[in-house]
């Protein structure tokens, strides 16, 4: 379990409505600081400046999907060690296993329950080394 509590979250998501709900949930319910990135191609730059504790990636996005972004993050020293949680609507067990094998910290299936989301993230955070 990391020594510091989970406070800074970066969420890469193209759907503006979900962006808003997640921001509201994490800020109001979870009392966290949230950086939302709508364009996955700008995500790594945003992470480098924001320096989040944990990154949430949407699976399906235009331009670049979550797994592709995840692989790019692994190639960059500034982002390679960030824990990543996938938010996915097509949670086939096979896909999830594949992501966990690639080093994802966890996966939360869509639709998620907003009021439970902070606790779910903290549970994943608690399991990290």
């Amino acid at each position, binding site marked *: 379990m990391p020594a510091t509590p989970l406070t800074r979250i970066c969420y890469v998501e193209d759907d503006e409505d979900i962006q808003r709900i997640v921001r*509201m949930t994490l800020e*109001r319910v979870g009392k966290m600081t949230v950086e939302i990135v709508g364009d996955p191609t700008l995500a790594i730059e945003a992470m480098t400046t924001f320096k989040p504790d944990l990154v949430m990636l949407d699976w399906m996005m235009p331009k670049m999907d979550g797994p592709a972004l995840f692989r790019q993050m692994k190639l960059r020293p500034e982002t390679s060690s960030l824990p990543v949680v996938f938010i996915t609507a*097509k949670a086939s067990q096979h896909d999830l296993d594949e992501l966990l094998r690639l080093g994802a910290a966890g996966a939360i299936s869509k639709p998620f*329950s*907003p*009021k439970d989301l902070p606790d779910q993230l903290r549970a994943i955070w608690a399991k990290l080394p």
Partner: protein
Amino acid sequence: MAHTPTATVQAADPLTASAAGRVSASIRDRADPRLVLADRVEQLYSQMWLGILMTFAIGAIATFELWENRLEELVLFWWGLVLFITASSAGLVYAYRRAPDRATNPEQWLRWLGIAALANGANWGFAGAVFFPSHADEQQVFLAFLLAGMMSAGIPVYAASWPIFAIYAAGIVAPFTYVLATFGNRLFTELALLVPMFYAINVAIAYRLSDVFHSGYRLRHAYGRLTDDYSVLNQQLERQLVELDEARRQVEASGRKLALFAERAPIAVLELDDKARVTQANPAAELLFGYASAELVGGPVKRIVRPEYHAEFDRQWDAMIASREPVAAIKVRNPRKDGQDLVCEWAVTPLVNPDGSIVSVIAQGQDVTRQLEAERMKKEFTSTLSHELRTPLTSIIGSLQLINSGVLGEIDKDVAELTTVAERNGQRLLDLINDILDIEKIESGKLTMTPEVFAMEELVREAMLLNKAFGERFKVRFQAHGDLDGRPVFADRKRLLQVMTNLLSNAAKFSPEDSAVDVQMSTDGWAIRVAVQDRGPGIPDAFRNRIFGRFAQADSTASRQKGGTGLGLAICKRLVEMMQGHIGFEDREGGGTSFWFELPAAANREKVTRN
């Protein structure tokens, strides 16, 4: 030792001769002996007229000759005997001719003939003995000549049966020999010695003749029999020819039928030789691949296989030819003549003779291009449904949850009521989408299980806890009964939780307020049984048969009031069965329904797997 080669040569000849003999003997042996005898008797009787006429004529001449110098009464008596014998013989022949049993009772007629012959012979013998003059006289010559003539004349008459001749001749010779022997004259004594020898020679000749007759008759009958056999054979052959002809017509008819099948079949049918060259193509094949039949026939079938798959084609073809086993459901990318690609599903069947040789290979192909496209689109649609419908629902349900949870601050009671309705229906829509996707996945065989070993009881309690809030909405509480001895199951945990959730929420929905839903756990041998029991209204009779069907709801108003998609139990049944279990329901004593499922305990399952 020096004789050995000669002996060998000598041995060879009789062998060949006896082989030929065996053949004719075997043919002769086919004759029926009674029929042969009947023929011989017939021959004897047909010669009798000659004998009778001869006896009468010669007897008349002898009577005339002897009349002068002999006792008239005695000559007259003898002539009387001649007349009597010839008349009796004629009567016998007449009786024989009219007898219905002459073919079936030849022995009897032969005996009568023997008696007649003996009487005749003895009469001549009597003449020789009685009328032989005691002094040298030309009549001695006459009588001797007469008797010798009568004896040799008997040969052709009685030749068909040598014993008859022997009896007849003995009748002539015996008294005469006696007379000669007792005459007291040296010449006659010598003649008396010679006469039996002549007799013996005549009998021997008669014997040989008789044998020839016998053999002839036997052959005649044998050939007659053979001819009969041949006519039977001929009849059989004719019948077989008729049958063969009928069979040929039937084969032709089924050939035409088959040709018609191929001709009118909506699927492509190709006949190939064992080198994969096309020998025939039906109209559907022409239509499908855009080639005329004449273009395909004679050429390799690989013309309608994309070149990059030729190596794979050769491999599969060789395997099929080697095994003589049909190949079914193989998908091949087939280019049309116009270059457009088709995907066809082929069934390829070698037509094999009983001796293992290949007559031809029948390939039946069906265009599945559109079917595959439809499958791809369905998959795409499912994926879209899964993503595009869930994403807006995430926003809707998420927003409403946030509002209803109160973290954004107090809201007006009326508004809260409406946002709760909205959240619940959003959730219901989501459940429906999830259930449809589940059913689709199960039915297309794409749902995979990730089984693990875990304690069933824990899972049951977890499910009760997770659904506690749902139960409270209907003012229903869940109560656990019994235990499972900590026995584990080998199952997909997440899917089993889904089953439990379905059963618990169903029970809650149909339970009266303030009642309990009992969750009964028990073990029965290797089975673990969980029953979810409610005090609801029970299952209507009309609904019992289709309760595990899709979109099955007893009362459609219930789904509106209580939520539910009508797919829950259908999914439960399929999931439980995929985990080698059973699911069912029964009426509960005192009202209500008990839904149960059974799963094999893990140890059992491991045992089964080991076996």
